């Protein structure tokens, strides 16, 4: 039963609160976790995972990329450029986001799907399509569906750091601030929550605070019973849900690094700690800056380095927590960028894009799909997934049908937010 349905049930029933607010009785903890990493603005797959190089196009529009075609190499089956365009200030050679470091380290786990047609060059529509599987408005992101399927009532069922996070009211997305706030929130009765238990200086002695909490909860129950406005009933139930899991935040605090990093790395650290503490199911990780209409080569290299560094940290954290067989990571962007440069050394919007995936349920060291020299999508055989003229053009719909199957999305939800596309075994 997902959140809205649950709330609706509560609102209609005379049972009032079914969930113990103290969190004393909890549903089974989620077993599978999902991270969606969004490169906001529209990335350029040809810069790294669908490399073309500096061979000039036949139509006179110049090269697709400014790095040498001879720099294209591979780690396992994953092709990538080993160097950057000569005109830019390249990333630190020791950065985990440098291509030469990232791909050899992760190729074994990495699946690349190229030649995905987003059918749009608009940011909103592209982001919506890539992360919900539908170009129409109003569909929940996959991460929201996953959270709604397995643990919609958990405190942080769906963590969103930005990007497309429409939930269609299935779950309440949670935004995360600095890591320090978790301590404040994990111990709401403590003036010094960062201290050891005996030095936390409670506002009220524990037994008395228990009385206050009991009174609050009973008052909520009475309010639900007395309300005769459906909107208020829904809101009161949401309030109950929001307070159900607060006692579990302390488990998250215990699992966070001493100093949570900034940027994408920090988002990764919090997400994995939330998974490990059993209070989250899915997370959107987000960084922007990929909309490089000007000075593309330098700006895009900077952002890709940050992105790949963040993914590297994410994977390290997943492994450190022993969750590599339970977390699936998908990395994507609004759409692609033009296979040629504009007058400002930038690249504009292009409908063909790629995704990367790694982790649980993903068979790595593979590239599925592809594009031609002008970055038009090539079609694939729906059974073998090999490139085949006259086959299927991959779209975000195929990606999401496969994801939903892998996640075992609730059949009612799957039907309610249906996707009309054939099932391709993209990930396994």
């Amino acid at each position, binding site marked *: 039963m997902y959140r809205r349905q649950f709330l609706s049930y509560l609102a209609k029933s005379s049972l009032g609160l079914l969930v113990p607010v103290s969190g004393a009785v909890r549903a089974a903890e989620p077993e599978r976790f999902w991270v969606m990493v969004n490169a906001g603005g529209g990335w350029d797959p040809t810069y790294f995972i669908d490399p073309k190089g500096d061979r000039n196009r036949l139509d006179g529009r110049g090269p697709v990329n400014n790095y040498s075609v001879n720099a294209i190499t591979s780690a396992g089956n994953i092709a990538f450029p080993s160097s950057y365009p000569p005109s830019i200030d390249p990333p630190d050679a020791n950065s985990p986001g440098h291509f030469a470091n990232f791909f050899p380290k992760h190729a074994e786990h990495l699946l690349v799907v190229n030649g995905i047609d987003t059918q749009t060059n608009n940011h909103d*529509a592209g982001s919506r399509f890539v992360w919900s599987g539908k170009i129409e408005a109003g569909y929940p992101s996959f991460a929201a569906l996953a959270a709604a399927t397995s643990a919609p009532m958990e405190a942080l069922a769906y963590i969103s750091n930005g990007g497309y996070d429409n939930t269609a009211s299935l779950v309440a997305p949670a935004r995360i601030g600095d890591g320090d706030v978790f301590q404040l929130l994990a111990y709401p009765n403590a003036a010094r929550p960062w201290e050891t238990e005996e030095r936390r200086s409670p506002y009220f002695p524990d037994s008395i605070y228990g009385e206050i909490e009991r009174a609050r909860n009973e008052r909520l129950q009475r309010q639900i019973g007395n309300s005769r406005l459906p909107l208020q009933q829904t809101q009161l139930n949401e309030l109950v849900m929001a307070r159900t899991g607060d006692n579990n935040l302390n488990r998250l605090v215990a699992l966070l690094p001493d100093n949570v990093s900034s940027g994408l790395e920090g988002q990764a650290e919090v997400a994995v700690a939330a998974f490990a503490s059993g209070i989250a199911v899915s997370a959107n990780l987000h960084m922007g800056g990929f909309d490089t209409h000007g000075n593309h080569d330098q700006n895009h290299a900077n952002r890709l380095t940050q992105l790949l560094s963040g993914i590297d940290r994410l994977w390290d954290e997943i492994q450190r927590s022993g969750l590599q067989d339970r977390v699936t990571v998908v990395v994507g962007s609004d759409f692609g960028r033009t296979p040629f440069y504009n007058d400002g050394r930038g690249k504009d919007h292009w409908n063909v894009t790629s995704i990367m995936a790694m982790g649980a349920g993903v068979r790595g060291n593979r590239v599925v799909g592809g594009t031609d020299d002008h970055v038009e999508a090539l079609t694939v055989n729906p059974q073998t997934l090999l490139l085949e003229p006259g086959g299927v053009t991959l779209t975000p719909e195929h990606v999401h049908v496969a994801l939903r199957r892998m996640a075992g999305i609730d059949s009612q939800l799957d039907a309610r937010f249906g996707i009309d596309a054939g099932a391709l075994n993209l990930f396994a």
Partner: protein
Amino acid sequence: MSRFGHFKTFLLVFCATSFSHSTLANGAFIDDGFLLVPRIDIDGYGPMELGFRIVFNGEYRLILEQAQDTSASVANSGVWDSEAGSISIDEVRLESGEIYAVELLQLQTEPQILFGVAAAVLIQGQQSNPAPQSPPQNLASASQLFLQQCSSCHGADGEGSAVAPALIACASCGSYESLLLEIRDTMPLGQPASCDESCAVELAAYIQAAFNGSNETVSNQTVGFIELLGNGETLRKASEQLLSRLPTLEEFQLVAANGQAGLASAIDSMMEEKAFHDRLQEIFNDYLLTDKYHSRNGSEAAIGLLSNDDFPQRRWFDPGKDNRGDDYNVVRAQTNDGVAREPLALISHVVANDLPFTEILTADYMMMTPYSARSYGVSGIAFDNPNDPEEFKPGRLADIPHAGILTSPMFLNRYPTTSTNRNRGRARVVFDLFLDTDILAIEGVRPGNAVDITTPIPTINNPQCSKCHSVLDPVASIFQNWDSRGRYRPSRLSKYGWYIDMEPRGFNGEVMPLAGNVDSSVQWLAGRMAADPKFPRAITRIMVNGLTGKEPLMAPISADAGESELSAYVAERTVLNEIQERFVADNYNLKTLVREIMLSPYWRASAIGAAANAQSFTNVGASYLLSPEQLDRKVEALLGFDWRNSLDQYYKERDSYWASKLGRTFHQIYGGIDSDSITTRLRSPNGMMGAMQLRMANELACYAVPHDFWLPASERRLFLFVDTDTNPYNEEGLLDQSALGLIRQNIQFLHEYLLGEALTPGSPELQHTFDLFMNVLNRGRQYILSNSGEWWAIRLPDSCDRTRDFQGNDLKDVNGADLRLLYDKQFVIRAWMAVLAYLLADYKFLYS
């Protein structure tokens, strides 16, 4: 006396003298201050005629003054439920002609038999909307015309689509004439010439007959189930939501004397206050997002967008690194915010001066502060106070054709463009925000590639592209005199000119006449938009969202949409259409729009009739989770300080906006936006937000209770009836009934003051809170006893005690006196802290 003082006095008198609760009252018929009920059957008495004197003490109450036998032949007026102490009266006719169904609740029997009104449901208003008068038509032929001209966007059943609104209860469907004009002048979108007058006549008649025949009936039936807040409750809700403060005594009196007219008048007065404009700007920034450039997001976030070529004085406040004074950073931020807030200030200016709201688009000026004017290099503006960095006045940039928000540097930078985007992004936002048209909400999968680089001019020649671009691109071309950085650079003066492979400048199918408009095309567009019927609809949408926490319902387009969904949509849309018409009729005065929304049943809803289908009312009501900004202001208004760290440290950042935890630490966690990467508010609390609510309540209780007891009695906000020595137990350890009465009285006051919840002396809720107080007190006394009264058992938590005042003065020695509050020997203070922690985490505190 301050507004707060008035209200406090009012509550003090109310609680001290009446110690009871009441709400709005009416009767079977009301005449000269009396409610007369012709017949009510009373157990043991039989049919009685009753007369109630209506009085007002904060809110309406009814005193039973007449009761006499009446004939059983007189029609029964309602039901007296002696067990529940209530009277349900089927129909009460007001002197104004309105008829309500009313439920009275008995509040006391001694010394008078006193009633309040538990519910009042309007079942017949004064005016009714005549059904649209459509000329007789051949509907069969009109149906064909509709299918040819309209159905591809609006749907064959008029249910609408993502690219076009529903025609059921549409904004122009209130009258045949207005619908005809809209079709004739604006439809089909971008090509109105393809449907002439006769076509429009036929279609308007068809749309009215086919989709709108029963709207009024459906709306009346649906709205009739909505039970309304009383005028007093509505007043408090309005003042809290618009101003983040409690109503004043004068406002209560205004409502008491004049009923709903007084309420309307009070709301109008509230809109004259600065706090209303703060809220108004928040509402519009949620859409414009220009606060991205506020100094919170970068000291010179806005100034940095101004071109140094155009505005060489933009950093006038900087005398050079070595010569900066102490106020450099402050003046820099104030200047920046004068630039950043310019479009929002224009909205406030238009509203404050009762100008037509269309002027936010058509203003041939922009708003400047004394500081931002210096950045712009503009002088000669007659500021009331040339040193007030927050005073905005109209000003003009030389040789710039201003067009309100549309040419604001902040708006143009917030929605930038590129050489390939060619202002299409700006055009999309213009359609979305000011014309309620989402160009991008395109249904279905587009065949083929979305990026066509083979067709010569795909946006014109590829029908898949031109469908939208023929609407979008003429408006995009309109902005050709404004470059990617929002600078005015007339395209005719550019070496490259404007793109020849773009649609010419125009709007809604009309090509812009070049004569007189070449360098001022956005002004031409602003004039067209101001006259477009979609503009008031767009503004209504924004204000409904701002005042109710949710946008108006979309037409149910799903194939499995039920009757209840359609009824809900039709009823709300019909009400909003009427409100919108009043907004337009009052010369686009936004205050009229705000007032009418707040007086509508959708804003005042308190309950739904028992017989109603709840599915039709899921969107009814204006309760919403307060934004962090609103909650911040509410805390300060009620407690006298905002949520920071210990009050002993308050003086250190007394004037800093950033010191508030709701403005800083928890702003985004609690669903706030930064207008940059986080642009949508969270409306439902998650686990983090739930935990934050509890922490806030605990911390504020810790700070507020000792602080209030520490204050002189005349300055207190919370404890008007008790002191720290108001102990339920006397020296013999026996219950002190006098003290208990005062404690109950103060609890009643706190429910009213903090939650807007008027409780009667016998209210179960009052008893629950009292039980909490006593329970905590008893446990605390036991705690002290079991620790032998050790100092640490009687000492307040050190973050809660009072050792410094708000100026930072040490209270240990004030003219030889120790004014600190450190100890709580009887656990009384901490018992009140528990009550505060309980109330401040309540739904009624956290939601509007």
